């Protein structure tokens, strides 16, 4: 056993921070280079990192280089997730990292760079345990969780998060959160009012979409209703730009013979003729968007 660097032998080693020891233990399994680490805080600002690698060699980073040592230590960690990164940032904060130190640490932790990194770090610190959990379990993105939090931070927002069905995918959950946040911002609604709207809905994602996109929901419903009334869907598929930016439509007909094609075309024409007797042409945007 040998020490590589020792500059000060008067260290008084204190307890290893709990969250870091969890990380270190996890790394033992993940990182074959370093078989064990220990991390000790001497006094409030000082840090010593012992890395006991496979050669039974201890690397000792000492007081004068605390911040650099910590960044070097972080570089040794593999496969860290967002929760690990967050905890490592919390420790960095305790080590009095300034803005520039954080900027140097962010790339190591694969964290958002520059001031945005600080912004997200500070926001997450304020998150409720439940919102943190959703973020750390990758059920919400950092961007959408932050967007949601910024709007509802002064309210009991967990009540809305608890409504989110477990079976939603990551992107669906983010979409739901974003839609409801946008709706609350636009219509100036609080969590209580949003909860009341959402709680009786069978399809929360769909409901949130309708709240965020009321005009679109109205027009797509008119259009789909129109397609139903046209009665051509069983013979063909109408393809259209879902946001109605483009004015053109196309039609896909599946057939196996000329007779079948002929039959389907006749049926389509008959359906259109029948519809035209009293129905309006909602293929034309000027009618649809009236």
């Amino acid at each position, binding site marked *: 056993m040998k020490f590589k660097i020792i500059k000060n032998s008067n260290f008084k080693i204190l307890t290893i921070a709990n969250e870091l020891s969890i990380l270190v233990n996890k790394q033992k399994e993940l990182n074959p280079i370093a078989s064990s680490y220990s991390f000790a805080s001497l006094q409030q600002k000082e840090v010593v990192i012992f890395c006991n690698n496979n050669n039974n060699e201890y690397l000792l980073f000492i007081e004068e280089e605390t911040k650099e040592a910590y960044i070097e230590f972080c570089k040794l960690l593999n496969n860290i997730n967002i929760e690990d990164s967050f905890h490592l940032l919390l420790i960095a904060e305790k080590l009095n990292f300034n803005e520039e130190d954080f900027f140097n640490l962010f790339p190591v932790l694969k964290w958002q*760079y*520059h001031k945005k990194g600080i912004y997200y770090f500070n926001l997450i610190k304020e998150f409720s345990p439940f919102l943190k959990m959703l973020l750390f379990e990758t059920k919400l993105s950092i961007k959408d969780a932050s967007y949601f939090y910024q709007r509802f931070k002064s309210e009991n927002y967990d009540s809305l998060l608890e409504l989110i069905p477990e079976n939603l995918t990551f992107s669906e959950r983010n979409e739901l959160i974003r839609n409801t946040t946008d709706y609350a911002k636009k219509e100036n609604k609080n969590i209580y009012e949003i909860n009341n709207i959402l709680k009786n809905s069978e399809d929360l994602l769909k409901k949130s979409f309708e709240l965020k996109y009321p*005009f679109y929901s109205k027009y797509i419903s008119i259009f789909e209703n129109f397609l139903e009334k046209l009665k051509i869907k069983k013979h063909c598929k109408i393809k259209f730009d879902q946001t109605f930016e483009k004015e053109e439509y196309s039609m896909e007909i599946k057939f196996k013979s000329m007779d079948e094609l002929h039959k389907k075309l006749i049926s389509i024409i008959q359906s259109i003729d029948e519809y035209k007797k009293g129905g309006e042409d909602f293929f034309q945007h000027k009618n649809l968007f009236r």
Partner: protein
Amino acid sequence: MLKEFYNYKTIFIEKKFKNHKNVEKILSRLNPEETIYIDDVKDTIDKLNSKNIKDNKNLLFLGGIRGEILQTCPGSHGHICCNYNVINLYIGCPLGCHYCILQSYLNQPFTIINIDIETIFKNIEEILKKERNKIFRIGTGELSDSLVFDPITDFSVDFVNFFKNQPNAIFELKTKTNFIENLLKIEAGNNIVIGFSVNPEETVSQIEGISAPIEKRIESIEKLIKKGYKIALHFDPIININNFDILYMTLIEKLFKVIPIEKIAWLSMGTLRFTKSLKNEIEYNYPDSLLLSDEFFENMDKKYRYFKPIRITLYQKVRNWIKKYDEYDKIPIYLCMESPSVWQEVLEKRPESGKNLELLFK
């Protein structure tokens, strides 16, 4: 001088321009903590960027223009472009409008003033001479506000005097400021247009940073018209705000009370649009902003716009309120970065190419 606009701690100056008259003038009007002479603006910015000085807006660079001097406005895929040419005289803007594309477009936060305007004029003159039959619409308001630095550069004087003598150019200075003192000191030219971006005062005061209140812009328009300048009005971005009708109607009434329609060179309309990266920047810079919470969809040019019927309604309303003052459609109106079908719905015409659009400006 105007500390809120020009609060530069450090000014970097390219050595070859150390004794340039424009550098001397700018330095005499600012009070930086330090001036540093450098070999090259780009190299220095690259070095600063690598040192993570991403958010420092207090650095000013004075240097020569790089790359192509006259560039075509980037336009937008699938949307009609108005064939605008831009000179990137200034890069960076201190106004701080919440919706500004520069938040995501520029890869550095610093301000650059291209002080070597003699080279700009020499190059532009050559370009214009080569195609005398073509009309060039040229502006400097792409990567900054055209007049925001005028109190420290006086460049408007040089540019107006230069372009007045260019028969196949129409030159526009586009602004949200009221920094028009220099323009009032010189004679206007027939081919010089001063463009003002306009929005209801509620929008201006809430989300257009330190740009001039709309009343100040209107006062400036009035003075410029008296001096003989032509005016352009840019209803851009039109934002779907609460009380849209009354606020935009009031704005239009105020504008047309002082602007005779024959003094309007052109009028543009464009609704709020943004890229994904701008969306991220707005959310970060202005977390309480209501700008993005409306019904936006991503279009084929990867820009988010209001759902089409919302856009059409907003345009039609503005168009109709303007029409009250422009009964015979004398004002050349165009839509900025809009699809042919929206043009058709709003303006009852569909320029299929930029060439057709050029006719608007003749």
